[in-house]
């Protein structure tokens, strides 16, 4: 599903003394099947932006288009539910949304709400438990008896269970250990490829944005200020710095190496693997001379 935002603006608590402007004239377009990373400093409007993508917030100005549905300030609630069927959100600390008596029932909550038959929902719940690497006997346990990492996986399963075609991830790995972080990010990449999902990742990690995304959107003080491929965005370190954002570690390392050796490498190393290759090639060249 293609998603586009045109001149989207949003104010919280409009018409009260607490009124607070969160978005100004945001423009963006996200193609079907793309993997977009949204990066920005704390308070840049990333989270507000993603709430617009499945109608949890309606823009106070402008239009959000999801597939063939347009959301404006006066779209009816019923229309919004249709969008939610196709756009799943994994919120920050999604384990806070668990409530059912058993893991199985909690995963089935979404599918049942969207009218998927009970048998099918149950089957999906078990598939997802396996897919997310949870022990099989977890299905009949209370979600509150699990460890933090397992709760996170159950909550993610609860969103994947209704097979959304657009998946929005709001810092899905915050607070996980490095290994759990990698496992979950790789799972999303796998799903993205196998199911042909349109994935939108909101993250503080420049490394994740560089490694996984094919398109990067930069938010700063409620505006969309940069958009492009990871190479384009992370190639412009000075501009990123003006938005109080850094570079992925591998790119920063490459810059240091380039400075010390006084030569430029042709490509930007977005991951450690690419960095190793670039340096190895440079060393080989040096040796041949």
């Amino acid at each position, binding site marked *: 599903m293609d998603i586009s935002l045109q001149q989207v603006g949003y104010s*919280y*608590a409009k*018409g*009260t*003394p*607490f009124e607070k402007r969160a978005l100004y004239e945001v423009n963006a377009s996200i193609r079907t099947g793309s993997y977009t990373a949204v990066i920005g400093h704390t308070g840049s409007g990333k989270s507000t932006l993603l*709430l617009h993508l*499945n109608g*949890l917030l309606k823009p106070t100005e402008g239009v959000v288009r999801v597939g063939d549905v347009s959301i404006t300030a006066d779209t009816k*609630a*019923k229309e919004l*539910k249709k969008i*939610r*069927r196709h*756009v*799943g*959100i994994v*919120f920050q600390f*999604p384990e*806070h*949304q*668990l*409530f059912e008596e058993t893991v199985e029932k909690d995963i089935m*909550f*979404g599918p049942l*709400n*969207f009218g998927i038959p009970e048998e099918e929902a149950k089957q999906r719940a078990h598939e997802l438990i396996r897919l997310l690497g949870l022990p099989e006997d977890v299905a009949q346990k209370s979600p*509150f008896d699990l460890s933090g990492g397992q709760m996170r996986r159950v909550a993610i399963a*609860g*969103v994947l269970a*209704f097979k959304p075609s657009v998946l929005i991830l709001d810092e899905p790995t915050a607070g996980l250990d490095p290994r759990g972080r990698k496992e979950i990010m790789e799972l999303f990449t796998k799903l993205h490829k196998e199911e042909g999902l349109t994935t939108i990742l909101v993250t503080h990690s420049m490394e994740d944005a560089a490694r996984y995304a094919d398109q990067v959107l930069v938010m700063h003080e409620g505006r969309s200020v940069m958009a492009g491929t990871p190479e384009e965005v992370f190639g412009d370190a000075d501009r990123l710095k003006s938005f109080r954002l850094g570079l992925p570690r591998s790119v920063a390392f490459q810059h240091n190496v380039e400075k010390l050796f006084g030569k430029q490498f042709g490509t930007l190393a977005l991951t450690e693997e690419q960095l190793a290759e670039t340096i190895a090639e440079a060393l080989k060249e040096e040796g041949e001379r």
Partner: protein
Amino acid sequence: MLEKMIFGRYVPGNSFVHRLDPRSKLLFVFLFIIAVFLADNTATYALLLVFTLLVIFIARIRLYFLFNGLKPILFLIIFTLLMHFIFTKEGALLIDWKFLKIYEEGVRQGIYISIRFLVLVLMTTILTLTTSPISITDGMETLLNPLKRIKLPVHELALMMSISLRFIPTLMDETDKILKAQLARGSDLTSGTVKERIRAVVPLLVPLFVSAFKRAEDLAIAMEVRGYRGGEGRTRYRQLDWQLRDTLVIILFLLLVAALIWLRGGN
């Protein structure tokens, strides 16, 4: 979604009402609540209403903002009003339309009770809107201090109050977050039968309770770690300061009571 609720919220400002000592405000509101029950006829209820509107004006609170924030409570007031219209059957018959019969006394009682309710809610809301939770607690603790002699745990009560006030906005935000997460999973609170709607609240309440208990535990540990041992020998950073304007407020209150007694019909 709940950002419009203002009950229990504090809006910083610098009006006459904002600058009053919390003790005089608390004393005033507490006595006012009792004084409201002195009213028994049109003149006295009108006086109460005008007085309250005057206080809102002095506190520089926008009326639209106030009433918009109190919408849920206004519904309750309108509901009481209607109940009185329908069920009080005294005095002359005013409207007789099919099965609906409205009597004079019903209208009068309904309006009186609604004003009483409205004035009480407005006055307490003005108190919380113009006084920071910390000042309210400080004021409360000082006012109740004499009761320590009869072994009333004043400090603990004040602490409980300040903690609950402190966590109202936090829990509101939390509710909002959980609500959004469940909406995203297709939960629907605004349509369906009454039974379905009640069941739709469960996915909201369970996570909210879980997180409230977790927060309470974290807070208790954090306090313990920083050596909290109750009120014994504890000094204060903020000193309360009773000024001329606070005495004026008390005099104003006495005048209001005198006027109420004078205008009152009596029985």
